[in-house]
């Protein structure tokens, strides 16, 4: 029982450290691609500490509770995700609960943004929700393919089965789903071709237009957690999780860095173009993956 409590306490902290490290790494890699020297790896930590000391502006109670709900939602999802051998809350709901709690974060940000009553924010929210509808179609097909393939809805079992046999990205029907998930990863993380909902130039960073000191800090922490969640989900489902956290961390790094290369050089999609792209190739692959698993799975 004690190890379970330790897991519950430490896995969000670990996720935060990994997420913030990824943010710092992202800025460093993008700077190097731009031939710039780039900030130190701990720059996000410095930013967050400064933001906590910075006063800020609030537009009412819903403005505060929305951002708190969104960060709480992201942290709760981390509790459901296995990190190496640890999976704090495995026995209560599995992948379906992860799927549904993952929508708490955008909903909370949207509520607090709505209260901010700024046209940039409203445009940001509408784009974010349309984009999430866009990448959710292939994501659902991928999750369903994995669940029907392993006949279970608990992610811990998926990991254990993969530990035994080969990674699922190599087994035939799921390679399509794996590739499709990898194609929509930039959309989930909000990397460049799809960062249409927080575009600093057009809609002055959409949802975060009215976020001041500690709100911006919570928003960056929440972005770090979303980074961790989406990549950990990919690694757990397709690269077979890991025996100990170090290997897990290396696998996450391998998945994260290619997305950055596209982020550094790609211009930004419009919302329709993004959704058209998301509903074309990734959905086709995921669709084929699901059909194959149902046919072969039997």
């Amino acid at each position, binding site marked *: 029982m004690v190890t379970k409590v330790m897991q519950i306490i430490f896995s969000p902290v670990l996720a935060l450290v990994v997420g913030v490290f990824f943010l710092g790494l992202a*800025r460093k890699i993008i*700077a190097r691609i*731009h*031939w*710039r*020297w*780039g*900030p*130190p790896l701990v*720059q996000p930590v*410095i*930013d967050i*500490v*400064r933001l906590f*000391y*910075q*006063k*800020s*502006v609030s537009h009412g109670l819903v403005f505060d509770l929305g951002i708190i709900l969104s960060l709480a939602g992201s942290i709760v999802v981390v509790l459901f995700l296995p990190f190496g051998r640890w999976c704090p809350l495995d026995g209560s709901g599995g992948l379906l609960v992860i799927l549904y709690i993952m929508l708490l974060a955008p909903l909370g940000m949207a509520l607090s943004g709505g209260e901010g009553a700024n046209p*940039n924010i409203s445009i940001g929210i509408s784009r974010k929700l349309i984009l999430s509808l866009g990448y959710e179609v292939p994501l659902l097909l991928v999750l369903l393919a994995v669940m029907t393939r392993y006949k279970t809805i608990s992610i811990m079992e998926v990991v254990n089965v993969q530990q035994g046999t080969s990674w699922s990205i190599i087994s035939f029907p799921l390679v399509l789903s794996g590739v499709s998930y990898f194609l929509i990863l930039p959309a989930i993380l909000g990397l460049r071709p799809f960062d249409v909902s927080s575009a*600093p*130039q057009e809609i*002055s*960073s959409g949802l*975060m*237009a*009215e*976020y*001041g*000191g500690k709100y*911006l800090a919570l928003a960056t922490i929440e972005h770090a957690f979303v980074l961790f969640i989406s990549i950990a989900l990919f690694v757990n489902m397709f690269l077979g999780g890991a025996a100990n956290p170090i290997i897990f961390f290396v696998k996450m790094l391998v998945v994260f860095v290619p997305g950055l290369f596209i982020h550094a050089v790609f211009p930004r999609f419009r919302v329709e173009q993004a959704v058209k792209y998301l509903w074309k190739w990734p959905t086709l692959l995921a669709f084929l993956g699901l059909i194959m698993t149902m046919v072969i799975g039997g």
Partner: protein
Amino acid sequence: MDRNQITKWLKAPAKMANKYSLHAIYFCTGCGIIEVPPVITARWDAERFGIIPAATPRQANLFLITGYVSVKTLRAIIRTYEQMPEPKYTVGFGSCPINGGMYWDSYNTIKHLDKYIPIDGWIAGCMPRPEAIFIAVTHLWTLIEKDMANGYIRYKDNYESYRSNQEMALGKLEWPPLYPASDEHRGGE
């Protein structure tokens, strides 16, 4: 750069954090804005000092006023300055904000910008080069270190005189005062 000295961090985290993470909002007023892109891109990278462009004044704590200030843009500058959250620093580029510069006798430019909003740092030059901008940033660090970069505190203490100057220059202002005289609504903390 004493950024990597952990002891300084532990002693005064707020000051160190304010020094090494300046999210700048630069206002494209006059000709100075052409100096800013080279500052934040490949040749002279500002990000290694922790300076990244911020999208809105709410997210920023450094305000760069680049170039001459016409009477019309003064209204927008005051509005943006008031929307920035507390510990905020302003840097004036070039000679025009200092004393009107080349347009010292023009009927529609503002001569001494710091009659209207407090300025923490000046960069002389009829459009300073990027190196001058970095010297200004490092100078700003020392000011922050010695707690002399207190523009926002001066603004709060002498708000009445700043406000009256603004009304003398611009006539009636559409937005209510940031720190109301009777200090009951806003509770000037």
